[in-house]
């Protein structure tokens, strides 16, 4: 039962899979994070982009969730990227489980961009990822690496941090 899924009344809906929950969590992150303002602010801002690299289990959930919602007044789009090199214009990047093998390389490719990286891959935070989904007491939760967020010039609201399972402020270990 999740409050932000009005399309699925709690009583009648089939139980939500953890990837449904992750999809909802993922796009809501955008509402509690500040991205650095571009040098020349656009009068007509581009849609808020949630990009996915690798294989994800979101199916149509992510697309249907973002349809009728906005992030700070911006429409949301979900883009499945063919490769990590195509992340221009992405605000959030979700790395699917299939990226586990080349996680370090992926994160290194985008290390100079202000992108919120999210994944369920174990050890994601240690590799320099910013938010990692994990399961606690059979609920989807998330943990934050604040040092990585700071390096990407992202400001995470304290409201978001207070619901994180833990907040790691140590910088990620290099060369892992």
């Amino acid at each position, binding site marked *: 039962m999740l409050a932000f899924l009005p399309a699925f009344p709690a009583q009648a809906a089939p139980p939500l899979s953890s990837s449904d929950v992750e999809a909802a969590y993922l796009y809501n992150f955008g509402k509690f994070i500040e991205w650095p303002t571009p040098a020349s602010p656009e009068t007509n801002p581009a849609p808020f982009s949630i990009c996915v690299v690798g294989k994800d289990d979101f199916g149509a959930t992510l697309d249907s969730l973002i349809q009728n919602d906005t992030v700070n007044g911006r429409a949301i789009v979900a883009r499945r990227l063919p490769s990590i090199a195509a992340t221009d214009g992405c605000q959030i990047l979700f790395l699917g489980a299939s990226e586990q093998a080349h996680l370090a390389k992926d994160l290194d490719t985008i290390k100079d961009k202000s992108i919120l990286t999210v994944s369920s891959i174990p050890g994601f935070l240690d590799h320099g990822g910013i938010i990692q989904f994990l399961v606690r007491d059979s609920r989807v939760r998330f943990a934050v690496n604040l040092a990585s967020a700071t390096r990407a010039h992202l400001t995470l609201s304290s409201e*978001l941090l207070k619901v994180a399972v833990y907040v790691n402020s140590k910088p990620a270990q290099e060369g892992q």
Partner: protein
Amino acid sequence: MKPSTSPTRSIAARLSLMNLLVSGVALLLAYLSFVAYDLVNTRQDAISNLTGEAQIIGANSVTAILYDDRAVAQSTLSALAGSTDVTGAAIYTTAGQPFAQYLAKGASPIQPSSVPPGETHTGWRTGLDVLIASPIVFQGKHVGVVYIQAHLENLRRQAARFAAITAAILLFCLGVALLIGNVFRRLLSQPIVSLARTSRLISRYKDYSLRFEPTQSYTELASLTDAFNEM
């Protein structure tokens, strides 16, 4: 006791009674309006304070609801333990499911009702018990509802104190009004008393050379005295 003094006494007594009635009724009406106004005002203040608290709780519970963290919502709600009148609070999701609840010791559980759409807050009142509902809206989306249940015991105490203080002030005012009224009563009845005394002397001693003490106090009494003197 001279029999002829009683009519003047009765004028004086009636003036006093009139004075008491007029001031008393005026002050009583003033008293009732003050107390009623204060009661309505204090109650409105109490409800708007509770609504403010509900909105703060709501704003601080957005992430807890969106990220399904009941423990955080619970701890946000329990901050209301410091609020003396609050007997309980709850957060419900938009689907109407309870999400988190806080109940003061011995308080009855919260019975939520649905909030009419488009309203920012709603209060239900039965006597001193109020239930405030405040929808949680975040970035234009409805994410839940905060309920705060309170027993306005402080309101009762405050109203009783206000009523007592106001009663004391108004009794004092009544006393002063009666004193001032007495002074005027004497000014008004004195010439009549002396008029009556002189006419008594004239009728007793048949001494028509006796003259009435002239009075300047009131036009009517002065012309009455003058008329007697000219007889």
